[in-house]
């Protein structure tokens, strides 16, 4: 047994696949008869055959029921608020955020009793420009006390850490948006662990005045769900739904800039990461600088950390992206970029 293993391990490396391939290669032939059945019941890959040992077997089975937040839509959905101009010439952006309890689907068929901002997890991506006046009308329609704590620079009473909003009451958070970068907002009511893993968080983007280079922009909030409430996560994802982007690959244009706003708000397992295949990205930590970056293909972040990732694909085809913690990847934090030739007019 021990004599054989180095050999077989080498053979596996040759196969060039990830860990799950282990016994799968040998079993592939045997399970080919099941392929048609597999495709019929769950279309994980837009028609590719489900072969043992490939990533297609490592998946959440089924589709979301209607009426759920579509993670594909969420990727590119930004809330710029209701815009007006203050007497001093400053741009005022007003947002409405309502905390409400709602059951959400975190993997096909798995329902989770979430606490949400505006009925969705993650909450709406609040976006503004540096120097804008931001005014958030917050109403708590949930059954518990909540608040909104924004990351960034603002007065103490706008911090959402001490002013707790009981059910049925409202609060207005107002401050100047600074500094530019990728920030975060979340509930700061104790016990914070529960208020976070129940779903009260979202992305807060402050654009630099001069803007960033044009790109396809995607918001990715790395989160996880403890569905059985044992203080361990059962489901990991970006934007809530396990394996969503593996089953619905994100289209990306070949040779054009893609920008990912990446946030880690995973509870319990506080370190999370993102790795992209077949490429490297420019990493702007917290997005607070336009010049200092790292050239890498993995970013690892603690809870609450965020980063702006910019990359351009050189080759077309399907490329995986996932947490480079195999467990997280296999429990749902795994997706695919489908790199396509841009359609030219």
């Amino acid at each position, binding site marked *: 047994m021990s004599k054989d293993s180095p050999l077989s391990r080498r053979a596996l490396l040759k196969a060039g696949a990830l860990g*799950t*391939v*282990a*016994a*799968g290669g*040998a*079993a592939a032939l*045997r*399970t080919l008869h*099941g392929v048609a*059945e*597999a495709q019929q*019941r*769950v279309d*994980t890959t837009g028609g590719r055959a*489900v072969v*043992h*040992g490939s990533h*297609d*077997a*490592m*998946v*959440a*089975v*089924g589709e979301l029921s209607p009426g759920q937040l579509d993670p594909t839509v969420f990727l590119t959905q930004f809330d710029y608020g209701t815009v007006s101009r203050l007497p001093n010439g400053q741009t005022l952006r007003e947002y409405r955020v309502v905390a409400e309890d709602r059951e959400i689907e*975190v*993997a*096909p*068929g*798995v*329902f*989770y009793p979430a606490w949400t901002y505006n009925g969705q997890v993650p909450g709406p991506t609040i976006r503004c420009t540096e120097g804008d006046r931001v005014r958030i009308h917050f109403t708590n329609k949930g059954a518990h006390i909540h608040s909104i704590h924004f990351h960034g620079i603002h007065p103490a009473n706008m911090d959402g850490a001490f002013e707790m909003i009981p059910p049925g009451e409202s609060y207005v958070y107002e401050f100047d948006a600074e500094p530019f970068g990728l920030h975060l907002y979340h509930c700061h009511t104790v016990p914070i662990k529960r208020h976070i893993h129940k779903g009260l968080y979202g992305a807060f983007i402050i654009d630099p005045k001069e803007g960033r280079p044009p790109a396809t922009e995607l918001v990715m909030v790395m989160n996880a*769900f403890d*569905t*059985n409430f044992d203080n361990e996560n*059962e489901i990991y994802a970006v934007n809530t739904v*396990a*394996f969503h982007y593996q089953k619905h690959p994100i289209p990306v244009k070949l040779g054009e800039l893609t920008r990912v706003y990446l946030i880690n708000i995973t509870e319990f397992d506080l370190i999370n990461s993102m790795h992209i295949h077949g490429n490297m990205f420019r990493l702007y930590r917290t997005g607070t600088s336009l010049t200092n970056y790292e050239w890498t293909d993995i970013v690892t972040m603690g809870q609450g950390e965020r980063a702006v990732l910019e990359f351009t694909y050189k080759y077309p085809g399907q490329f995986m992206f996932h947490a480079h913690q195999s*467990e997280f990847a*296999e*429990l*749902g934090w795994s997706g695919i970029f489908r790199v396509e030739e841009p359609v030219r007019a």
Partner: protein
Amino acid sequence: MRENVEGPGAAGRAEGAAFPYSAPSAPSASGNRLLLGLAPLALLALLVFAFLKVGPLGVFRAAFPPVEELTIERVTLPKAGEMVVHVVNGGPEAVTVAQVQVDDASWLHYVDGERTIGRLERRSIRIPYPWVEGEPHVVRLITSTGLTFDTTIEVATTTPRADARYLTTFALLGVYVGVIPVFLGLLWFPFLRTASRRWLDFFLALTVGLLIFLGVDAFAEALETATRVAGAFQGLGVVLLGVLGTPLALAAIAHRKRGAGKGTSAFHVALLIAIGIGLHNLGEGLAIGAAYSTGAIALGTFLIIGFLLHNTTEGLGILAPIATERPSVGRLVMLGAIAGVPTVLGAWIGAFTYSPLWTTLFFAIGAGAIVQVVWELVKLFARRSEGGLTAPLNVAGLMAGLLIMYVTGLLVPA
């Protein structure tokens, strides 16, 4: 039952006294009695019907989700790259299996029917997972409410199929751990025949010790497997039925056969002992077959030797009451077969269709049968031996029996 004995008149009087509301001089007393007996049942049926029709009212209409309960009875590994999880819903409400994770990885799977499993319904879930020979795996079912139900495959190995080869293997297993030891024990017959009355009592007391040990062992096993029985099937209730029902049923049968008051013949006692040991061995075979087929135990030489020594004493137990008689070889073989062969049956059942429910029942019946045997032996002692079981030599015998089982038990891991 009682009514048959006492007749309608007696029962009517008794009821009249306890139940002043009953019509004392109704023309058809038995018809009335039937009505009185059925009225609460009819009302109950009406109430159940109403509940089913309009649902529970008021406080029962809870806002919290129902407690889900799924019991994974068995995981089979029919071939490389495939697992099959056998699950039963023993909870109060239907449960929907939404996702499956194996070793902390979400995995493709196929349910042989609706994902929603009704109360007391069963499903098999086939998972094309590349399990690794000889290594443990953890399978987790996630329900629609996010609850999880886990099971561990201790050592992954292909589950035996009921083909000729495996039937032979498990038959041999049963023969080794059950049949051979019992028959070996029977070979003590010539030796026992030479023993004096006092020493025969000693060996009979030793048998009591053995049986008590086996009985407690079976009872403990029954209680242990009862915890793995799906809730609705009430493992503890099954234990109670087996442990209390078996001796009562056996006693009733014996009572009917010989009529009340008369003593039990020595052969009857031996037969009872053989039945008791046989039922115990059926449970033991079940446990061994199941453990072997799921890889929980490796059937090493050591284990076989352990069971050989452990179970050989069972043969001795059968002999003790009939040592002074002249049973035919045929009868001895029959007694040995009754005690030993169930191990083979148990091993087959356990290997191919292990179910915690049946295993619990068999162990409980085994324990119950032994209760009855021990009771008969105690009565036998009271009749034949001065001082009964508590005569010093008999106490020594009983203790020796317990000790032999304990010491040989050391050779049987787990």
